[in-house]
């Protein structure tokens, strides 16, 4: 799809700054990408053909996502700032509080996102993806990472 399709769908993207970093694929979701997986579709509600961490209730609520990422060591935090040795995620939700997207912070301080079945992008701000499709960032998560991350 042309680049302007992205910018039409995410009105703040162009001014926020972004780069396309992959081809389109239906193999994995934003949640999988946030969890550093590229071989399966993380989704609590898809049934066959999808993955959800064992033992985590299969609900597509914010609480469900928090529980899923807790299995990887993430815990809620209050901001999107950058800290050495810490990796952050941001969860977006619509006006009803239903999660729509997860982004992961890079060491540079920018964010990386898998946009549905479309491309991966790096975006300089979280606000760049806020708008009618993804709503707003409603939760930040953090975990400590080793020096090799």
């Amino acid at each position, binding site marked *: 799809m042309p680049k302007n399709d992205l910018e039409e769908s995410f009105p703040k993207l162009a001014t926020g700054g972004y780069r396309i970093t992959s081809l389109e694929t239906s193999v994995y979701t934003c949640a999988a990408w946030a969890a550093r997986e590229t071989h399966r*579709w993380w989704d609590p509600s898809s049934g066959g053909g999808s993955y959800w961490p064992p033992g985590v209730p299969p609900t597509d609520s914010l609480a469900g996502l928090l529980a899923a990422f807790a299995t990887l060591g993430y815990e809620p935090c209050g901001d999107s700032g950058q800290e050495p040795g810490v990796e952050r995620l941001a969860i977006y939700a619509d006006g009803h509080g239903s999660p729509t997207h997860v982004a992961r912070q890079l060491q540079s301080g920018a964010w990386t996102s898998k946009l549905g079945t479309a491309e991966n992008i790096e975006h300089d701000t979280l606000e760049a993806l806020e708008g009618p499709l993804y709503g707003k960032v409603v939760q930040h998560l953090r975990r400590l990472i080793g020096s090799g991350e």
Partner: protein
Amino acid sequence: MSNAEAIYDKVQALPASAQAAVLRMVELLDDASPARAAGESNSLARKFQELAETWRRETRFFSFMPQRALNPAYQRIIGMGWVVVPLLLRELQRQPDHWLWALQAITGEDPARSTDSLGAATEAWLIWGRARGLLPDAQE
């Protein structure tokens, strides 16, 4: 054995609720003129492709299946019922995508239940379809 007779045999493996729809397709193949049957088939395939393209376009930025499967075009495909199952399987074979919900909703079956990736789920559904004569057998 004619194609229609072969399909009648395969239909016995389907749930009772599906048999009427498939048998109607067989009647079309057997009784209607070839031109009429081909016309209906082409019209169905065109409609399916239009809806599939709309669904891809309108949901391409969504990762969670409720947002993707509740899209009106996806729901209309599900509403087309059993007659669209061979088209869904062929589309899955051509370009694996998240048609699993639709297939499960229409057929009431879930041969991909134990899989956790799109590739494995696609293969499970294609095996299911071939076993029922809804897809050509895999090339050796």
